Structure formats: C-alpha cells, structure tokens
C-alpha cells in the first residue's frame, strides 16, 4: 500500500520541477567527471598504443652521440654476444601538401637487406620496400587516403615530388590526428634525399636481444660504450609514456574533481533551498508521529533514488559529451592527439557513478540533519527563522581560506606532478569550502546595503527584489555561493588559458622588428641558408637589414654550477636528460640580431649591455633550460661543437624566446655570437634569415623575389604575422585539453546557475501567489524575480571572478616557483598572468542572460497559477 520507497518516489514524481532541477545538478556533476575521465583514458590509451607501435618491436633503441659515427656505434653494438641482431634506422621529418592538406611525413629509412629489420615492423599486408623507389606506408594513413599496394604514392618533398611504388602497409599505431604519415623507405633513399646533418635527424639503432636476456642489464652495458648517448628499453619507453601521461591524467582528474565540487555545491544548494519549503512537509510528518530518524531516512531515500537515477543519466550525458568533444578535437586544428577511438572503461563509469551517488549523499547530509530537527509545529505555524540569522562562527571560514591559500603556495613541495595536482586540488577545495562558509557574512550586509540604497530610487519591483534578497540573506548567500563556485572555476580555467596564450604574444612583441623570416619547418639538410643566398638576399633593393641565424645542436659535457661540478638527478627521465645535454644553440650576430628580433630578458637585465658583451666568451641561456639544470648567470658550461671542438663559456644572462622557425621551440636553449660559434665550435652554417624591409618598399614584391631565390631549397618565406599565428597555434595545442575542460566548466556552471535560480523561484510559488493576491501584476512578478536573479548571479559572478583571479594568481606564483625546481610540471617559458578581459565581459553578459532565463522559465509556470491556487493550503 504505502512504503517509504513509494512515499519518496511520490514526492519526487509530484514535485517534478524540484526533482528535475536537483537531478540536473547530479547529472552535470557525473557527466563532467565521466567525460573528462573518458577523454583522459582515451588519450592515454591512444598515446600508449602509439608509443608502443612507434617504438617498434625492438627490445632496445640505441641513440648514438651526435658527434659519433652512428654506423660505427651500430657495428660495436652488434658485436656484443647477447644480441640477436641490430638494425639501423634513420628518421627524417618533412612537411608537405597532398591535395592542399598539410601532412607531416615521418620518413624512416630502413635497412631492407637486414634480416633483423624485417622483424621490427608489423606489416598488415605486403612487404617492406626492398629497393630505391619503393615505399611502405602506415596502414592508418593509407586507409585515410585510400592508398593500396601496387599503386604509386607521390611524396611531396621540397626538393621535388618523388614517385614511389607502394609495397606494403605497416601497423604503426593509431594515427596522430591523421596528419602524421609514416613513410618507410629503403635507406639509400634517405641517403640520397634526406638531410646530411644528423643533428636534426634522429638515427637509432634497433636492437633485438636473444631470448631470455634482460633488457636493462644489456642496456646498461651498451650505455657505457663509446659514442652512445642513450639506450631506451622497450619496457622503459612504455613506462615513460605512462609516466608522461600521468600528469595529464591527474590534471584531468583534478578538473574532474573540481567539476564534482561544482556539482556537489549545486546539489547541496538544491537540497538546501528546498529545505525551507519542505519545513512544512516534514513538520506535518513529525506532528503526526514521525521521529527525526524517520524523517532523515526519508530524505536519504529520496537522495538515493535521485542519485541512482540521475547518475545513470549523467553517465549517458557524459558519453554524449565525450563523443562531442572527440568530434571537436578531430575537426579542430591538426597537430593534436587524435582520439579516434574513445576508450570507455567500466572503471571510469563506476568511478563517476559512485562519485555522483556519493556527492548526492554527502550533499544531503547537512540538509537531512536540519530536516531531522524540524519542529513538529512547523506545519501549523511559521517557525521563527533561527536559520536566517548568520552565525558568527562563519568567521572560521576565513581561517579555512587562509589554510587553503597557504597550501596552494606550498603545493609544489610534492615530489611528483601527480601529487602536485592532487595537492593543488585539495588546496583549491579547501579554499572553496572556506569561501562557502564565509560568504554569507559578506553577502548579507551587501544585500542589506543594496536594499537600503534601492529603497529610495527604484519602483515596486526593485524594492521588493532587494527586500527579498536582504530579508532572506542566508538563502541569497547560499545561491550566491553556488554560483560563485561555478563561475570562479570557469574563470580559473579562462585565466589559465589567457595567460598561456599571452606568453606567446608577449615574447613575439619583443621580437616584432622584422618583416619577413626565411626559415624551414622541417628537419632538413644544413645549411639551409648558403653564404651565397645570404648575400643575394642582402643585395635585394627592398631589404634594409638582413641577419642570419645559425641553429644547430651542441653537446654539453660539463656544468660548473656556482663553482662546483654538477650531478644530474637520478629521477630525471632519460629522454629529458638527453635533450638537456644536447641543447639547441643559436648563433646570432649580436649587432644585427637585436635590431630585427630580440630575446625576452628577466626584469632588471639590461638587454643592450648583454648584446654588447656577447662578443666575449659568453652564452645566453634559455631560462627554462637553465633552471632545469639549476644554472645561474655566472655559471660555466663546456660545449662540444662540430668535429669534437670544444670550449668553456660563461652564462651571461638568462632569457626566454620563441624561435623564428617552428622546428622545436626548446631548441633555443643557448645563444652565442656567430664569431664564437665559428671560432670555438666550428659551427658555420646558417639556418634562417630575418629581413627588415625598407620603408615604403613593396612587401609582396620582396616576397616574390625571395621566393625566386629560395626555389629548390627547403626554405619558406613567412611574414611576421604568419609566424605570430603559428606561435598562437603552438600555444593553443597544449591548451586544447584545458579549453575542452573550460567548455565543460562553462556548460556546467551556466546550467548550474539556471538550476540554482530556477530552484529558488520554484520554491517560492506561494510567495509569488501572495504578491499577485495583493494586486501585483504578472509583469511586476516577472520583473521582481528577474531582478533578484540578476542581482544574485551578478554578486556570484563578481565574487567568482575575484576568487578565481586570486586562486589563479597564487597558482601561477607557485607554478613559477615550482618551475625553478620542477620544469616538467608546466613547460611554459614565462609564466605571465594575464587577465582574460574578453572572457570576463562575455561571462558577465552570459550570466545576465542565463540568470534571466533561469528565473523566467519557472516564473512563467508560477504566473500561470492563480493567486488562490498558489495560496491554497496544501
């Protein structure tokens, strides 16, 4: 007949508006967590698969020292006893267009005659290229482009298109955004067309071990051999990928967790706001004999039903969201991880589902306690609103906020990026908790002030609205808090994105003195820029200033840090170490270079002096690189250049930069004068040119002339603007995941805002009826409610922006501090905080619109009710 389940179900069914709105809060929370988890898992799995396939089927990969002869190293390695075989591979990256679409060709030279080589690649069909003129393509690329075995594939090299016959398709893992094409050719092809300089052309020696041999022990033996820079085992490579994904994952879980907090606040607010209306309901139950436990049980039962139902719907919504995001990612700018297959794991689903139910139960804990304490007479006469007085104990919120801020300042002490993310999240959570406790102390007086101000000025609706807000200050501040949490989260992400984007702009602005850059995107043959070409460009009548840049790799053999030789950390990952000790070096003309471009020096460093001094035995060091190695100005490094020529230099200053080209932006680790590069390091080949045009000269003509001059080389001419766009794109890439999160956050918090406002209105149907009963018009009701909604959400948004800014600034400060010691956490060259003005304006506009919508839908419903109906004592 009647059971507690039926009673709760009936409550939920009949109070549809309330149920749906509370459910929406749960749904949003679960959906955002689930979709974030799905994307994180999918990205991890894709990268893992890609990494594994990319590594190939070898047991070890030996990377020879740039200075050593790779062939000799391969021979030495092959002579070891425990080795089954050794194959040599050379890789070369070059971009080119196919039907107007830009592809990144990863051209791999393989030793087709080597018996071991044939075992290193997993052919899905056909065979490896056996002679010059044959090619095997990666299976996914071939599938996307519709290539088949036996057909001709035209490889668009800069030096001219090459026609190759397709002999096989190779499974080399999921494609990365379908713009990366694996092209496998016979070694002679690379020798003929590929880059001569090995510095930009990673060659590796693939080693297959005899059965039962331990990868690591042999790797250690090889590492000790002459001319070997690095040995990576298959197991380590995989662990490396996993480790590198761990921080991405933890970032996602952190965002997911924050989304959960937002969702939880929503749920809590929903229950909290409805508690006032439910006071009568539960008072009645108590009057006829319900005890507190029974009342609480009823609340929990409702929460469980809600939690189960809407968490399940949330899962579905999360699934849709992740499909939508996958679609966005795939249609977006190329260059990102292409999550072609979503990995939907039951683990992620269970975590999200439990999180939803957990959050629901957690959120009703306090409301249930309150409901348990409701006086039996609550149904019969309005109770004195003891809860409306704001308790002084809320000042404790301030202490909690301070504790959270302290923790945020200190979060970088965690020993790895996963723990750092977790700590940062915990700190943010604690701050929010404090804010939620503390805000009523501000909001109450704020609305009182508003009431006092508006009483004199505005019409009936304004008076009523401000009266309502100030009289019900606890409810108002609860709504404000709920909005605040969502908005500040959105704002935090926006701030993060804006700052990251502005890094590129800021540095480019410093460099905005040239008109044209002549550069190449590819790892190609040095010299790109011959002495003759340089002379010809200088001779152009449009050119005012021309300077060349010499970009190459050196090896660092010794670091003198503050007078003592430095040892590397054991914990550093090997690839990073390899990069750190073979940094890119830029040889520039200290007189001309600052006139066409510049570097970004820390505050207090006199740039002009630095450039003047660079003629001496000095280098400038990239700040990030230097900090990773704990180097400071005044420290010394020994560099090894071409042909083993080496010399010690002192670090003159630290700098930040975006290089002209896009090869690798971390290659600008060191800057040196061109004379010194030639004299001490034997580096004499130029790679790029910067051109400043004469005033009034025709840019288009200059471009056309330069194009003519560079015909047949790998060079391209780019305007400053094109470079700027490229940098923007470059910055956008690492921001893509955060910006997806941003979308989720915006969606969740705006829906949450509608939700909060709507619940507030829904629970006041009686009040609205009363206004109408005493002669209020529909318009007045609408205006009052809309005003209240806008005022509430504006207060929430203002505080949200303030708190978001506060958290962002502190977070950036501590990330900067963390970057001094842990550069791998965030690899931005400069941490600049930049206020997202546009986003803020947009946010305010959206908030106003959305809050009006959130208020007017339920008002419409409420307006349909006649005064008598609304006032009828249920």
């Amino acid at each position, binding site marked *: 007949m009647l059971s507690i389940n039926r009673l709760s179900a009936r409550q939920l069914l009949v109070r549809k508006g309330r149920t749906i709105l509370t459910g929406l809060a749960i749904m949003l929370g679960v959906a955002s967590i689930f979709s974030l988890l799905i994307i994180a898992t999918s990205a991890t799995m894709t990268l893992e698969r890609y990494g594994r396939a990319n590594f190939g089927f070898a047991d070890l990969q030996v990377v020879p020292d740039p200075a050593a002869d790779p062939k000799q190293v391969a021979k030495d390695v092959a002579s070891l006893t425990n080795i089954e075989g050794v194959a040599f591979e050379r890789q070369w990256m070059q971009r080119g267009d196919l039907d107007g679409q830009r592809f990144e060709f990863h051209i791999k030279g393989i030793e087709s005659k080597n018996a071991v080589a044939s075992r290193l690649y997993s052919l899905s069909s056909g065979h490896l290229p056996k002679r010059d003129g044959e090619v095997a393509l990666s299976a996914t690329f071939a599938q996307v482009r519709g290539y088949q075995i036996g057909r001709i594939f035209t490889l668009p090299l800069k030096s001219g298109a090459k026609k190759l016959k397709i002999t096989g398709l190779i499974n080399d893992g999921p494609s990365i955004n379908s713009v990366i094409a694996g092209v496998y050719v016979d070694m002679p092809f690379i020798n003929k067309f590929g880059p001569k300089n090995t510095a930009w052309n990673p060659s590796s020696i693939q080693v297959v071990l005899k059965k039962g041999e331990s990868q690591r022990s042999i790797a250690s033996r090889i590492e000790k051999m002459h001319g070997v820079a690095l040995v990576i085992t298959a197991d380590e490579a995989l662990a490396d990928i996993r480790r590198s994904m761990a921080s991405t994952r933890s970032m996602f879980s952190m965002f997911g967790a924050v989304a959960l907090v937002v969702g939880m606040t929503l749920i809590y607010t929903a229950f909290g706001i409805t508690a006032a209306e439910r006071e009568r309901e539960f008072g009645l139950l*108590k009057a006829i*004999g319900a005890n507190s436990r*029974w009342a609480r049980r009823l609340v929990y039962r409702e929460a469980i039903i809600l939690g189960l139902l809407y968490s399940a719907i949330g899962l579905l919504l999360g699934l849709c969201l992740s499909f939508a995001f996958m679609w966005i990612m795939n249609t977006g700018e190329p260059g990102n991880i292409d999550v072609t297959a979503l990995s939907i794991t039951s683990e992620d689903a269970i975590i999200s589902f439990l999180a939803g139910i957990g959050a629901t139960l957690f959120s009703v804990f306090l409301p249930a306690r309150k409901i348990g304490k409701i006086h039996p007479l609550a149904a019969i006469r309005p109770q004195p609103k003891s809860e409306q007085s704001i308790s002084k104990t809320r000042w404790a919120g301030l202490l909690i906020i301070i504790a959270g801020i302290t923790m945020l300042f200190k979060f970088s002490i965690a020993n790895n990026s996963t723990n750092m993310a977790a700590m940062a999240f915990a700190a943010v959570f604690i701050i929010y908790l404090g804010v939620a406790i503390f805000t009523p102390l501000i909001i109450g007086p704020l609305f009182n002030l508003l009431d006092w101000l508006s009483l004199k000025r505005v019409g009936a609706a304004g008076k009523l609205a401000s009266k309502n807000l100030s009289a019900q200050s606890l409810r108002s501040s609860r709504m404000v808090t709920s909005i605040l949490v969502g908005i500040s989260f959105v704002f935090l992400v926006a701030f993060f994105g804006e700052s990251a984007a502005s890094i590129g702009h800021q540095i480019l602005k410093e460099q905005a003195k040239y008109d044209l850059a002549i550069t190449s995107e590819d790892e190609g043959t040095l010299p790109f820029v011959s002495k003759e070409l340089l002379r010809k460009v200088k001779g152009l009548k449009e050119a005012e200033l021309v300077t060349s840049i010499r970009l190459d790799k050196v090896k660092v053999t010794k670091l003198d840090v503050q007078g003592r030789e430095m040892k590397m950390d054991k914990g550093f990952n090997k690839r990073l170490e390899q990069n750190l000790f073979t940094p890119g070096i830029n040889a520039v003309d200290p007189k001309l270079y600052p006139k066409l471009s510049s570097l970004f020096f820390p505050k207090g460093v006199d740039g002009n002096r630095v450039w003047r001094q660079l003629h001496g035995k000095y280098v400038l060091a990239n700040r990030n690189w230097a900090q990773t190695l704990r180097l400071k100005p005044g420290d010394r490094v020994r560099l090894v250049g071409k042909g083993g020529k080496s010399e010690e230099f002192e670090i003159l200053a630290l700098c930040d930069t975006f290089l002209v080209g896009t090869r690798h932006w971390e290659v600008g680790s060191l800057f040196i004068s061109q004379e010194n590069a030639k004299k001490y390091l034997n580096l004499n080949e130029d790679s790029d040119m910067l051109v400043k045009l004469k005033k009034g000269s025709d840019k288009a003509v200059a471009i056309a002339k330069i194009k003519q001059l560079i015909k047949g080389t790998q060079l391209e001419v780019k305007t400053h603007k094109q470079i700027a766009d490229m940098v923007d794109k470059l910055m956008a890439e690492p921001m893509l995941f955060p910006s997806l999160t941003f979308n989720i956050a915006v969606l969740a918090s705006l829906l949450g805002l509608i939700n909060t406002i709507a619940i507030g209105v829904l629970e006041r149907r009686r009040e609205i009826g009363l206004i109408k009963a005493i002669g209020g018009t529909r318009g007045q009701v609408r205006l009052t409610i809309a005003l209240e909604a806008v005022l509430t959400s504006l207060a929430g948004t203002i505080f949200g922006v303030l708190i978001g800014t506060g958290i962002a600034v502190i977070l950036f400060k501590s990330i900067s501090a963390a970057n001094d010691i842990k550069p791998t956490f965030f690899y931005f060259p400069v941490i600049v905080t930049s206020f997202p003005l546009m986003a803020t304006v947009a946010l305010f506009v959206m908030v106003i619109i959305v809050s009006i919508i959130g208020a007017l839908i339920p008002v419409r419903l409420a307006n349909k009710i006649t005064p008598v109906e609304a006032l009828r*004592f*249920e």
Partner: protein
Amino acid sequence: MIMEAIGLIKSYGEGSATVKALDNVTLQIEDGEFVAIMGPSGSGKSTLLHLMGGLDSITSGQVKVNGRDITTLKEAELARFRRKEIGFIFQSYNLVSVLTAEENVALPLLMDGCKESVMRENVGKAINLVGLDGRSHHRPSQLSGGEQQRVAIARAIVNNPSIILADEPTGNLDSVNAEEIMDLLSNLRNKSGQAIVMVTHDPKMAAYADRIIFLKDGRIIDEERLGGKIDQKKLVSKLKGSTN
C-alpha cells in the same frame, strides 16, 4: 482518567518580551470524555492543545497521559507517543498533498513499521468509518474541504489513539459540513470510546461536548458541564463573559 495537565505554564520569548501563553493550567480528561475548549483569540487554546499532544516543549508543569509523564520523554519517544496515543486534527487539514486519501491515512502506520496486511485492514476500517469509501484514491486537491477533514480524522484514528486532539476542526467548513464532521466525531467517541479535546469558537460545535473549558489570558476561567442538553443561551452568555 486518560489525561491530566498539572500547573502547565508556557511562555514565549525572553526577558521583558516574555509572553505567557499558558499560566498555570490544570485540568483532567476522563476516559471517553468529549471536552471543548473555548476562549477569545490569543487566549492559549492552541498552545494548550499542542502541549497536551507533545508537539511543543513545556515551560513548567506536567502532562500525564495514562499516568505517564510525557514531559520527561526523549525526542524519539515523544514521536512514538504522538503516533500511538494521540490523533491530531487541524483546522487546515494538513494532508500530504502528494499522497492519496488512503495513503495519507496509512502514514502513521507506515512510521510505525506496520505490516502491509495490517495496514491495509486498518486503513480500510478508518476510511469506512469516516465514510470515504469511494474516494480513497483521490488526492487532497481533488477533495472538498469536508472530505479532506474526514481524511484527516481517519488519519487521526487509524492508530486507535487514546485521545483525539482537534484544533478548530470545523473552522474552515460551512455549517452543513461542520455538523457532519461533529456528528462523525461524536459517533466515533461513542463507538470506540476515545476521549476528544476540541478547540472551537462556535458554541454550536461546543454543544456536542460533555464539558466546556473556558480559557482567557492563558488561564482557565470557567468550566461548564453539559448534561447532553444544549443550553445555547447560557453558553453564549458564558462566552460573552469570557470575552469581556
């Protein structure tokens, strides 16, 4: 004697703002007795009823039901007491709007952890007693005021309480409906012997009682025993006296 109030005092507020809603009220209710409480507005009638029903805290004094002092009961015991011993009827019906008539009646049994079959039987009986057989699946919003009050009465008696407390049960009803409700209440009393304490402003309704207690300023100022005969004139003059 089913119920006894001894020296009941109830005051609201603190310090100079203290309002004494009840000031030393002592009374007894006999088994099966029908008592009406009358008095001007604000005289403490509802307060007295709430204290007798364990709905509100007592400032000082005692309420004994079946010899047991309810002032010493803990929250959960008090809830049980309300559920088992008391049937409350309010002026404004106070039904749970999302539940049907019969489900509303079943509520106290549900809180009691009653078996489904027992619940069904008792609810059926109560609904039948108040004459709502055809309307048991209706929601409160689909019922007239008189019908809603019948549902409330059924809910009050379903647990077979020892005493029914009714605060102006006919206050919202027209005279025809009001008389029907009164007939119903006095029949119930006659059938199952429950004591009834009813607050009313209406002498006609009070005339159904065995005894009328007059309250003023939180004190009992008079008592009238009606020997089954209704002496309207005397009653009205008494009322007037109490109002002055």
